[in-house]
């Protein structure tokens, strides 16, 4: 373990990304994942620990035109209680309700949750449905540069993302879904929330005159990263949402998923769950639009 020689708590994005540009920095953003990972020896501190909590403007949820922006420091509680999100993206609010406990929701930031890149990350699934993009800020040529990257391209492996060491996760953005868009999120388990998902699944789309279009599906804990379930999407796109097609989608879900055996479930059970939960979520979509 290397020694921390510097602690920073910048108040502006400028200062933060400048510090990142200088290299070797561990970013602290809430800490609910960082603290236990450090204590368990799964990660090591860089020479600088930078707490980004004080950065102005990073904890806001805004809607500009059709684009919704959630700052990295926004807590899961703030998402859960956001009127704006409840109107624009209720599926995100529903997932926030299934996230851990009050105590964790109050501390965990959306930026931390996404950057932690857990294959089971609860907030990631609805954001994938919303075609979200990630905004990364860095200091280049004497100014802040930002780049946008699609969320589904953001993850590389468990705990690994494409974020470079000199980049700060600034926000997650998504466009307001089209009119008539409905989406549902579901994770099983005896506890409503305090459960690392054995699998989680979200499906959304526009259901008009019985036909399902703009279908988006995403799954957690069935692959090394949260994934878009492309086969499910293709199976359903442009077709009536009826029992036969729901059954077909359920089969596709099994094909999209490549789960592993771990302490929480066997791959066999995960495979079973994605199939039945696909049915459940699609039935929910049907019920809630009729």
């Amino acid at each position, binding site marked *: 373990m290397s020694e921390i020689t510097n602690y920073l708590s910048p108040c502006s994005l400028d200062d933060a990304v400048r510090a990142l540009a200088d290299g070797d920095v561990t970013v602290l953003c809430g800490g609910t994942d960082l603290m236990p990972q450090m204590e368990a020896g799964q990660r090591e501190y860089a020479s600088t620990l930078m707490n980004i909590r004080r950065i102005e403007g990073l904890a806001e949820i805004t809607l500009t035109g059709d684009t919704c922006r959630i700052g990295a420091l926004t807590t899961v509680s703030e998402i859960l209680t956001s009127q704006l999100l409840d109107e624009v993206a209720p599926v995100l609010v529903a997932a926030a309700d299934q996230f851990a406990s009050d105590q964790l929701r109050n501390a965990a930031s959306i930026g931390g949750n996404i950057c932690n890149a857990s294959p089971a990350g609860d907030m990631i699934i609805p954001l994938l449905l919303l075609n979200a993009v990630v905004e990364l800020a860095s200091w280049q040529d004497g100014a802040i540069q930002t780049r946008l990257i699609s969320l589904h391209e953001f993850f590389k492996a468990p705990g690994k993302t494409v974020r470079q060491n000199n980049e700060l996760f600034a926000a997650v953005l998504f466009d307001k879904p089209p009119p008539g868009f409905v989406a549902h999120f579901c994770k*099983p*388990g*005896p*506890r*409503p929330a*305090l*459960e*690392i998902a054995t699998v989680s699944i979200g499906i959304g789309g526009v259901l008009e005159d019985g036909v399902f279009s703009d279908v988006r599906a995403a799954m957690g804990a069935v692959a090394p990263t949260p994934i878009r379930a492309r086969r499910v999407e293709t199976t359903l796109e442009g077709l009536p949402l009826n029992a036969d097609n729901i059954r077909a989608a359920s089969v596709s879900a099994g094909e999209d998923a490549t789960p592993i055996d771990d*302490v*929480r*479930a*066997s791959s*066999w*059970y995960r495979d*079973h*769950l994605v199939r*039945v*939960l696909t*049915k*459940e979520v699609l039935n929910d979509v049907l019920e809630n639009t009729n």
Partner: protein
Amino acid sequence: MNKKTIATHIEKTTLIGQRVRKPDAADKSTGKTRYINDLVLPQMLYGKILHAGRPHAQIVSIDTTAAEQLPGVHGVLTGKDVAGLKFGFVRDNVALKETVRCEHDEVAAVAAETEEIASQALGLIKVEYKDLPGVFSPEDGRREDAPLIRGDFPGNKSLHFAFEHGDLTAAEAESDIIVDNVFKVHHVTHCCMGTSCAIADFDNNGKLTIYSQTQYPYNYKMDLAPALGMHPGDIRVIQPPVGGAFGSKLDVYPYEPIAALLAKKTGRPVKVLYTREEEFKSAPTRQPAVIHMRTGCKKDGTLTFRSADVLLDNGAYTSWGPTIPVVMMRTVSGHYRVPVIAYNAQAIYTNNPYAGSFRGYGNVQTTFATAQQIDMLAEQLDMDPIEFRLMNAQKPGERTPQQAFLRECALDKCLTTAADATDFVTRQKEYGLLRNSDSRYKKGIGIASSIHNAGGAKIHKSDGCGTMLKVDDYARATLITGASEIGQGIDTVISLIVAEELGIPVEHVTLMNNDSDLAPWDVGVHASRTTFIAGEGARRAAVKARQQILNAASTFAEISADELDLRDGFVVRDKEGSIVIKLEKLLRQMHFQPEPELVMVTDYYEPNSEPEGADHISNMSAAYSHAVHIAEITVDTWTGEIKVDKITSAQDVGRVISRAGLEGQTEGGIAIGLGYALTEDMQLEDGMLKNPCFRDYKVITAPEMPELDLHFIEDGCAEGPYGAKGAAELPTIVIAPAIANAFYNATGVRILSTPLSPEKVVRALILAQQADVSSSDSMATAAVS
């Protein structure tokens, strides 16, 4: 108006069965209570243990040089420092190991000025291991070619227990129906919220004071002494408040002698406190077992015999835990009237974490089997399930084949109370008919019952409890007892009893029960014995004190003592309640008279029970009790989740003493039982625990807790205090089979192993469906182990 200032008469009231506040609750609610985990002594060092992290290995070499040289380190110990200091139930354990036999085995220990330095020092210890092939299940352990875990225990055989009664062959021949199943129960652990902790401190006369979480201080001295090469008399045990115990603190574990040995080596107090991960890996477990059980009955429903072959996973060392077959045997031979018994239990050493004692003590495991077989028989007989149970239920005055004397027996009342409260028979039929519907969610109702000792358990020569009681000049009573408080509420029970007898407020009773140098002998908090035995001891002491006071009052007031009573801080005339003298005043008069007397009494209560002998034929408890649970569940056949909607419990408690305390013990016991049945599972892979955290080891949380409907049957008990029986274990015991029976009712599928996890449920349902299709018999059922 204040009754006390103007009243001339005081009505007779009783505290027995009332809701009384737990004396330590206010401090616990404000964070003021200083748990052992919170204690810091001047000059105290922090001890940390290096665990092997492998299941079976020879230690080739250990180099502690770098650790010893680290600034802030005051002492390092390894196996060679404790050679020959064996401890444990069969003296097969030692505080620090030279051979590794399970993952958490203690290899070295460090005392340092801070926890950080101690942890860092552990990282500097170099150990070279030679890994050995391991044994990870009792089935594997007893194979002839199995690796031998200990040279001194051939065949990896640990403890063995057997009991036979009657002619099994004849009983089988006269049986019309025999059910024959293999049940498998799994590893779970206590999950005390306060992690394991000990603080050891030697004085300059060589006497050890150990601050401990033990729930059995006298045995603790006896068990700890050989691990230190000390005389038990030179050990003083102080018991600060603890964060739960549930049986886990009945044994001595290596971290405790390690704390003491480090304290001896450094000459300073040493505290060892586990992290949660260490707690999960090092804490004792409930014994996993494979139970081959057979039960027979005649066409008319009369039970004919029960046989049980039990194979237990002992783990790497033998604690008190592997004596659980003694309790298992009592259930096999006493749960309903079973005339012929064949019982055989063998514990096998494995390289798994080692088993300890855990609330329910073996009965949790056996009842999972007995109560399901009773359910199977009822169905195969096509008899009314309650009628079948009632006709086999033992009655007051009967004896079991092991000669357990059921002087009072309320099994029939427990059955009818629970069945009536839930309309059991009708609903069981209804749900059974809906079993084959296409519905995703299926409902089921299930019943289970068991028997447990409720008047102590005489596993030693003595099951007694010593009590001392003084009442001072201010009419404040102090009771000194060996019975420990571990959160279960004996403090409330005893305060209430003393207050009842002396007619003083409960708040005026102080309990001293946390110092082995002060308190007299007691056999510890276990076996649902404390209310019965320490409570009776307290009652008897209080009655003596009361008599002394009444006699003195009689002399002063010239009224016969028989006509006097103690109420609300006064001596009163019994019939009309008129005040004779204020109790405080009387006590001072007694003290300051020409022939002064103080109220200080002692009592030693030894329950009227017989020691458990080698033949297992004895009335080993002074009372027995039954409980019936009915579980109502909803099964999600898609995900396999079982939601428990409601638990209805009817339990023979003899008499309620502390009502809120009894309810709390019942509710908490049910929660632990639910975890066992559904969610808790120590996932071991070649002896290594894969889920040492609450995220993956799932204890029951508030949203999962079902609605509870508790019924206490109060038929009294001739020997217990005010007719009370012990009650804390049965609620944990009966849950899992009630749920398994409800699951069968809902789905027609039997699950014969714990836990009924979602994945296992889905597999069982799919397997049953396949069997169903292939046999084209719509009533076919499948059993899954």
